């Protein structure tokens, strides 16, 4: 499951960045991948649809959001947490 989540998120981010998934690594930031605020909102929507979860994210306060978007790895970890939490 963990691997699927990671691969799926990389696929979503790669599509948004118009890159091949193999060019996206876990330590990269969205900024480094060229994803702007609109791209971020679109990526979060795609993640919510893919995993049937609700991501708590407000574009007005991205830094204060409980959802860590500081790197690809952080997003994977946050999504895994949300899947666990929202499974119940």
């Amino acid at each position: 499951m963990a691997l699927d989540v990671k691969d799926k998120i990389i696929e979503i981010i790669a599509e948004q960045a118009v890159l091949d998934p193999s060019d996206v690594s876990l330590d990269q930031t969205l900024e480094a991948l060229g994803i702007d605020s609109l791209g971020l909102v679109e990526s979060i929507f795609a993640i919510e649809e893919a995993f049937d979860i609700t991501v708590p994210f407000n574009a007005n306060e991205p830094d204060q959001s409980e959802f860590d978007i500081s790197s690809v790895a952080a997003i994977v970890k946050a999504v895994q947490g949300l899947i666990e939490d929202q499974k119940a």
Partner: protein
Amino acid sequence: MKRVVITGAGTVNALGLDVPSTLAAMAEGKCGIGDLNFRDVDRLAIKIGGQIHAWDAEGQFNRQQMALYDRFTQFTLVAAQQAIGQSGLEFAGELALRSGVILGTSGGGLTTQDDNYRMVYEEGKNRVHPFVVPKLMNNAACSHVSMEYNIKGPCYTVATACASSNHAMGQAFNMIRCGMSTAMITGGSESMLCFGGVKAWEGLRVMSKDACRPFSLNRNGMVQGEGAAVFVFEEMEHAQKRGAEILAEVIGFAMTSDASDIVMPSKQGAARAISGAITDARLNKDEIGYINAHGTGTAANDKTECAAVADALGAHADNIMISSTKSMHGHLIGGTGAVELLACIMALKDGIIAPTINYEEPDPECALDVVPNEARDAKVDVALSNAFAFGGLNAVLALRKAP
């Protein structure tokens, strides 16, 4: 060029069902934002808004009218009745031919669309009411005002998202100024507080779940409102000759496009619109006493707007008062500039500056006098009203105290 004055004003919004109650609420710093109440609201993440809970359409319109009037048209007609009633104008003969209606809206009959899509898609019905199209069209409100009052000149609707009303009023102003029209009914209306309307906004993730706090460091987004405001703009000599009460003079207008991003605001585009209105009104910057801000309460708008005001006004930016009444009535999208013009009229006519409520923490990037939380008494001769829309379309009006 002709001079243009305002001789009538009407409104319905979350703060009040007419101008006196709305201005009293603004002066008290009252908040009209609360829990939304409509079908399927439990499926929304955003559950607050400036909704008009006291709205009684059935009590004001007959069965035939109800079949044709979407909520945004109902709001418009009630506001127009107040405004035209106050002005004392009767549209007949030459005046009817030389008068028009220009109104702003963004969603038009969105509630009608929402209800009818739900019926055919969710409920599987294959038949809709015959008046769905004339009810939902964006120009329905404008046309009903024209029909109701026999206004036969230039009538149309402007849709520039959150700047719709300011664009509409700017057009109305210029039509009188250049001599095309004698009187114009203008302003705007919005009724987006339905499931589909709020759901669409939710997607963008710029809405606040708890409050609209413009310019406050802890602001976390916009809150929608609904309603309308309608004004009578009239050629000054025409108004003076008949002894009409003048609420304020409209002296300038400018519009610009950022030509950059579909949602992110631009300091340059906004500053050009503010400077443009000042130039158009032949003002010195230091004559400006009050600005009604666009002030949506989003992180991006408020800091960009403050930077634009500082750019356009230079050192004088520190002397002016700037407030966002959206903190009280919410963001009326296509109708917002019209309701906000009331705050400018109150500043010029009554010497009361409406506050920015819910202001909790200063933001160094919004370091202007935002009239936090409490209204202020002040003598103001000139006021500006800002509107900066999604799509990068900016429209700023300049008003002066009645001559």
